[in-house]
């Protein structure tokens, strides 16, 4: 399958459980065929933070140009998990569902 070198990636995230907040943003530009998804917190949590988050997520890729945009779904669902214990991130990963 030939993939677009550049376009926009959109992640569709469903929170399964947890007490932490996920960044809910829109389509993100990518190029060179690489999409980078960040797991774990953006900044180091305070020492008094403990919690976790489990999400189910899929990705959709948009490509083309104005007036003719196409998309396809990446045929794999992923599970993301983050666990923070007293400010230490003890788990932050994404695995196929």
């Amino acid at each position: 399958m030939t993939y677009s070198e550049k376009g926009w990636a959109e992640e569709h995230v469903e929170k399964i459980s947890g007490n932490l907040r996920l960044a809910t943003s829109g389509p993100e530009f990518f190029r060179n065929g690489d999409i980078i998804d960040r797991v774990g917190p953006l900044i180091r949590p305070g020492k008094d933070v403990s919690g976790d988050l489990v999400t189910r997520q899929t990705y959709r890729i948009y490509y083309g140009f104005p007036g003719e945009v196409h998309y396809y779904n990446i045929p794999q669902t992923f599970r993301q998990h983050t666990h923070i214990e007293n400010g230490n991130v003890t788990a932050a990963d994404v695995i196929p569902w």
Partner: protein
Amino acid sequence: MKISQKLFCVVVSSFTLIGSGLLNAHSQSVDGATERQENAVLQSLREVAWASHKPIQLYYCADCTATKGSMVDYSVPFPSITPAHSEGQTGVSAVQQMFKNAPHVSIAEDSGGIIKIHVGKVAEEVLETKLSVLAFDRDQQYDPNLAIAAIENTREMNAAMTSLGMASVPILGGLVAPRGRNLPHLPGSLRSVTVDQVLDLIAKTWGGPVVYGACDAATGKNGAKLFALWYGGAVLGTRF
């Protein structure tokens, strides 16, 4: 990076995610409806921002009293709002239409052309914090959520949170914006600016919505009022 960050990046190359660990596959969704509402509101706001060429910021007062058992709820719950359809309208009128059924919402376009939405009475004192110098590294210049993380890591912001009895919640995940020539980005540094002014700049650079939610009660550890600050918009790789 200048600031101390612990980032965990998963690179998707040829659209194959690499991960590790084994997780329980039978967890139940407890926040599905809230998540869908939040996603619907933010998606509608993104569409209005780009269709109207009007940057947007959303401030909300979060009902944080309904915590889950003994665990602190760091999600700073998004208000329960179902956006109404606003086809055929643009700018402030589109946003007003979108929130027409939501109580305690005020919407106005400021002198800089930014549409600012307030849901409830939001504690915004921490956004008035003055930053003497705010330096962005290259990643932070090109990624709005990393730029917001840079704000939260400043000495002034940490001092303000302490004096106001507030604490920011960890924001997890998100797609990472690439950096490079001709892509929208922030300057390398800003001097003598307030946090709100930086958020304005972020909204104008990428469109927004920039989202700030503050708890209405002190539900954090040590009696802190929690707040969440993140970029909920799109990063489309073109000038907004």
